[in-house]
């Protein structure tokens, strides 16, 4: 079960990075970056999975459980999801401004910083 989730996450990251490297529309590039971030989060949670473990909640039913899933990757992924959406929002605000200044969403039309 773990290896299946990890392979899914790895493929998701590969698809996301492929899209980021080969597409030219700015919004689509940020979308593919978000896909790659989601894939990485799936890989991280799958890395913390313990076979036949339960969620790390210690209520009455939970305290009697024998094995728990590792809680540390979950805390890290929680932070990563929120920071991911914050970065995506800022990138999209920049794209909106770029569109208003140049009228095009194609990354080949914004070449001032290229050497």
């Amino acid at each position, binding site marked *: 079960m773990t290896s299946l989730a990890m392979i899914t996450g790895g493929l998701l990251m590969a698809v996301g990075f492929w899209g980021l490297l080969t597409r030219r529309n700015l919004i689509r590039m940020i979308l593919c970056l978000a896909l790659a971030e989601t894939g990485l989060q799936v890989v991280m949670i799958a890395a913390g999975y313990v076979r036949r473990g339960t969620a790390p909640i210690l209520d009455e039913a939970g305290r009697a459980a024998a094995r728990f899933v590792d809680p540390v990757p979950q805390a890290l992924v929680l932070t990563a999801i929120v920071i991911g959406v914050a970065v995506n929002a800022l990138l999209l605000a920049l794209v909106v401004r770029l*569109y208003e200044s140049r009228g095009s969403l194609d990354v080949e039309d914004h070449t001032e910083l290229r050497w």
Partner: protein
Amino acid sequence: MVLLTVIGTVMIVAAVLAVHLRSLLGAIISAGVVSLFASIVFLLLGAPDVAMTEAAIGAGLSTVIFLFALRRTTGKDHDK
């Protein structure tokens, strides 16, 4: 196990659609589907906190901010 296989396949297909669909609107919705199914995968892997966060922020608010950015830039939604 079978459930995870099905969900994984749907996620990969939706991700490939998000990269290759000509319509940006369709691509954004496909990415939202990927986030939603990722939230289910998190639940199956024993991480309910992360599943709630991904469903609320990844599938909900992230899709909405992409749609708002799309509306604000182009009126039409066909682009490459």
